């Protein structure tokens, strides 16, 4: 059985330190950026807890001043105070909910914004390794946990701590020996918390990790659903997903019941405290060290303390969850982009000028060099065609030119200037690249075209579409330029998508134009129509054309054959034919075969290639 696919690659990073105080601090700082809100809920919750204790006092007054003397007017006036207090109480409740709620959403917003902004800086090599689902769960679901901790979590902690401190204070004041007895439970609680922390955090880390794996799994399934259906993978996919979901179940169930165990343990420990007080109070009372009133107050403070302690226990468990999420968020934010603007990098103003690939060596992975000591000079305005077997490194070459990846040795020079001294934006915005896999965004055709140049007028957009041979089919669509293309352009045919992405790049009016198999799925008649337009476009503009079709490349000023990490042949079409090298073979062999087929002739078997197999099993 095929192993779980998701197991192989994106090895989720492991967080091993058992307790990361820095993570909490960092989370806290995100909240503190909006200190007025934090202050708002601190004041709100502080007032609320004060008022709550005052209410207990009012109740006592109703009894003492109203009922016992039988004074209805006193009852009435105290009740009135009580009511007023409630109105005030409501105001502060509103204040703390509003500030905590807003803060929580605000922190989520901040984190998402930061992550998204950071993602803009990360290099393509990062995206090669990272699944969409991973990034989705990082950006969508993890901030929710952190936001909850910063707002509701801290709020509860604040409330609990304030209540506990005030209670302990009063207890110390009433009878310090008894109070010390109750404080014995604190080390007990700390030990229990530490024990649990290890386990709960571990489980929550696992839960967060599985959560992102599940998101990836969903994401990949939805993106590949057409393939899944055509290959009838439904059953087996469900089986694999079921395992993942099963693991998720196990981990979150464990985490949940560990947290559920923590609460009763805390309850028990605090009951031990109560019992200790009960036990010792008898003696203290008989010694006369405490009055019955004092004892009553003491006891009510203890009971009052049990709530905040339990609350702390609950928050403690969710805090582990938020820490696990925070770690993941910060791991994204801390990822250094591999390609950054060098200090002092500047915008050259234009990329026009000769281009030099200066002794470039490049590999995606160690031990698998794609280009070695590659040197090539291209004159301003030249049209260069790049051909070569698949996987030779054609796309890689233009990716390096765009600085999507940086060479491990050597550099690219525009007009003699090392491109590492330029800003990334200045390079990207002046190179128009039509990617090998066309991708459109959901929205209308017009919106997609305009992505090439945001301020283009409608006329310019139409002109670009005409040039790219897209105008004709676009106006035939249901709503013309306003037709929705669907996610990734699914509502269009592949050729149509290619034409739109071509037009999009044309609209950008770049200094350097790159077409990476831009018309591979376009029919030959349309392609012939475009050819003319493309030639005007490329006139005076340095251009790179990668294509397999002879018709697309033969008019280039220069054709490069890329093979085995370098240029194996170079020249115009006629020169290369004359050289009788690879290029000659590539096209004449094909040509001869075609002729042979056309005349119904037998072919010599392709040399050395065992293609005579039967797949029938």
């Amino acid at each position, binding site marked *: 059985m095929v192993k779980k696919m998701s197991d192989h690659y994106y090895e989720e990073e492991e967080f091993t330190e058992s307790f990361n105080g820095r993570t909490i601090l960092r989370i806290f700082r995100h909240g503190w950026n909006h200190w007025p809100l934090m202050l708002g809920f601190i004041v709100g919750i502080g007032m609320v807890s004060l008022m709550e204790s005052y209410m207990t006092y009012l109740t006592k007054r109703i009894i003492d001043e109203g009922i016992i003397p039988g004074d209805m007017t006193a009852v009435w006036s105290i009740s009135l105070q*009580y009511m007023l207090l409630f109105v005030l109480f409501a105001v502060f409740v*509103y204040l703390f909910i509003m500030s905590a709620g807003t803060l929580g959403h605000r922190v989520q917003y901040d984190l998402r914004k930061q992550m998204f902004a950071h993602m803009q800086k990360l290099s393509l090599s990062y995206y090669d390794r990272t699944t969409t689902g991973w990034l989705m769960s990082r950006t969508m679901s993890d901030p929710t946990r952190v936001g909850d901790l910063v707002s509701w979590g801290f709020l509860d902690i604040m409330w609990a701590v304030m209540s506990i401190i005030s209670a302990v204070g009063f207890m110390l004041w009433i009878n310090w020996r008894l109070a010390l007895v109750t404080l014995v439970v604190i080390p007990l609680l700390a030990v229990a918390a530490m024990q649990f922390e290890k386990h709960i955090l571990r489980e929550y880390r696992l839960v967060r990790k599985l959560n992102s794996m599940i998101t990836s799994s969903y994401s990949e399934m939805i993106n590949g659903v057409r393939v899944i259906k055509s290959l009838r993978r439904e059953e087996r996919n469900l089986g694999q997903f079921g395992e993942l979901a099963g693991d998720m179940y196990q981990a979150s169930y464990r985490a949940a019941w560990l947290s559920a165990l923590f609460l009763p343990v805390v309850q028990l420990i605090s009951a031990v405290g109560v019992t200790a007080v009960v036990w010792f109070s008898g003696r203290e009372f008989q010694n006369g060290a405490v009055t019955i009133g004092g004892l009553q107050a003491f006891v009510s403070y203890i009971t009052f303390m049990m709530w905040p302690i339990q609350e702390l226990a609950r928050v403690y468990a969710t805090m582990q969850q938020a820490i696990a999420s925070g770690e993941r968020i910060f791991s994204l934010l801390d990822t250094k982009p591999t390609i950054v603007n060098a200090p002092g990098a500047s915008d050259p103003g234009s990329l026009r000028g000769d281009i030099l690939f200066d002794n470039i060596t490049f590999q995606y*992975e160690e031990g698998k060099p794609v280009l070695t000591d590659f040197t090539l000079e291209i004159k301003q305005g030249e049209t260069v065609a790049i051909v070569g077997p698949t996987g030779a490194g054609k796309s890689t070459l233009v990716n390096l030119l765009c600085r999507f990846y940086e060479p491990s040795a050597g550099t690219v020079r525009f007009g003699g200037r090392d491109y590492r001294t330029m800003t990334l934006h200045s390079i990207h915005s002046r190179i128009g690249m039509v990617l090998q896999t066309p991708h459109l965004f959901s929205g209308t055709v017009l919106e997609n075209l305009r992505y090439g140049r945001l301020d283009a007028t409608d006329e310019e957009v139409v002109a670009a579409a005409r040039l790219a041979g897209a105008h004709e089919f676009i106006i035939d669509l249901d709503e013309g330029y306003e037709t929705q293309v669907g996610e*990734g352009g699914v509502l269009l045919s592949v050729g149509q998508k290619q034409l739109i992405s071509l037009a999009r790049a044309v609209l950008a009016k770049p200094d350097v134009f790159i077409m990476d198999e831009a018309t591979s799925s376009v029919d030959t008649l349309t392609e012939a129509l475009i050819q003319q337009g493309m030639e005007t476009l490329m006139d005076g503009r340095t251009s790179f054309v990668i294509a397999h079709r002879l018709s697309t490349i033969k008019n280039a000023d220069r054709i490069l054959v890329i093979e085995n990490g370098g240029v194996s042949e170079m020249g115009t079409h006629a020169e290369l034919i004359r050289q009788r090298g690879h290029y000659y073979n590539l096209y004449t062999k*094909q040509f001869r075969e075609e002729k042979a087929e056309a005349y119904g002739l037998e072919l010599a078997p392709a040399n050395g290639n065992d293609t005579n197999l039967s797949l029938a099993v």
Partner: protein
Amino acid sequence: MSKQALNLEETVVENRLISFWRLLTGHRLLYLTAVIALGLAALAQTGIFYLLRYFVDTVLPSETLAVQLPWVALGFVGLALLQGGFTFTSGRLAAYAAEQIALEVRNYLYDHIQRLSFTYHDNQQTGELLQRATSDVEALRKLFAEQGVGIGRIVLMFAVNFVAIVAINGRLALYSIVIIPIVLIIAVYFFKKVGEVFDAFQEQEAVLSNRLQEHLTGIRVVKAFARQEYELERFEDDNYEKFRRGRRLSKMHAIFWPSTDVLTGLQMIAGFYIGAQMAIEGTITVGAFLAYAGFLGQIIWPIRNLGRLIADISTGDVAFTRIKQIMRETREPLAEQGTVVPGPDGLRGEVVFRHVDFAYDADTPVLHDIDFAVRPGQVVALLGGTGSGKTSLVGLLPRFYDYTGGSITLDGVELREYRRQELRQQIGIVMQEPFLFSGTVRDNIAYGAGRVVTQEEIVAAAKAAAVHDVIMSFPKGYDTVVGERGVTLSGGQKQRVTLARTLLINPRILILDDATSSVDTETEAEIRSALLTLMQNRTTFVIAHRIQTVMTADLILVLENGRIVQRGTHDDLVDKPGIYQQIYDLQARIEEELEEDLAAVDGYQNGYAMVGSR
């Protein structure tokens, strides 16, 4: 281990209570136990409070303190144990039920989504589906893990304390709960309000999720056009809107909570007032009033929380409604009852199209009056302009979409009569856009086999797709991991891996939709000759743009705007004026030029003459 593919279809009913109840299938007893256990835990805690009061009021001042003390202490420990035990039981059982439900819903949704029709997926956004499958499921899980169990605590605490008050004075008891209907009305009002606001919030989360998902899949385009700023702005808009809606949600709570607080507060004061009056009038004793004051606090708490609970449940309800919207979509039937299953030897592969019409959506027909017949083992080539309907035509065969008019028969049986599952097993399609899954090359090639495949079979398929040598050149060979969608492979490598994947399933009908567009001419020739052997005895549909790929076909169909405008073999068509001839001429002209170029090259004569003279 896990119960898979539980049919949740029947949970999808309008009535939300029934829906939730059905969702609990199999865990009802457990869940009820959890609910009750939490109530008992709350009672135990109440017990601790009362024991403490009893201790201070009665035991401490008494003479027999020393005798009673151990018993009281024991009582505390006992109650605490009870409380702890019940809390744990409840927490554990509720977690179990909630996680089980989450598991079932996740599995069901996963399966359901992958079985929804192509049309559904064409019009659905990945980000939104993802959001519903994750965030909404999480909200639903929370409903069962946290909010649902709270009912027990509320009901039991209310019941016990209410009874205690009734025991003091029936009328007083009634006066103490007059607020309940009002709290309920407000809660129901907020249930709707919070629901609406939460729905809007989740909706925006889905928008944000879509934005992100699309951004990530199109990251290369973003970078190529240096549109980071623009993307940031767009993300900012959606993100800020989410914050705004989140704030509005907080505001709903911020209004709702204090309003119930004030109401229940008033109730409490009213209770005190009436109770005090009764005590002063002598209807009840002062002692009874003191007891009543204690109980009153314990009865107000559940009432106040009932309101909050109801408002909170609305979030789970909204989330579940959003999930139900997906569940309600009908699946693409894969194995309907009573339909034709191809025999054990598989299909012969005779395909007949009779006046077939097709439209993705009713008002824009894509194919008109498609009419042709293919005998088993023949090769049909489809040629035509961009968007002329080639992909749409072949997509009808595996029943990705169903034709809207005319008839298609396969081995003499109407296509619609076949079960999709077996049909797709017999039809192998190499799609125009290669899609790989993250995993190893080996896993990807074996992806569709549906059985254990040997290394030899994988190698054989890879060789036929001319990708074996390439794979072997990778340091890790077949264990090389390809990135998401196969990003770490070159375009041609990806395409050939998908070809190998389809060849491995050994289909009776093979469809190659522009399957070699990203492959260089030399490799393409290699693949073509390998396929020549493979295509024998298989009905094959080939879509291509180059004449040399289609010229050997038994039947060439030329499409234009969804109609067949020309048909025949290469020899029939090449001499007839029409699209085919135009394409041929265009390509022939290039070849002629090449021929001239070649003629200009020394020694060429020999090379060409050798072939030409035979």
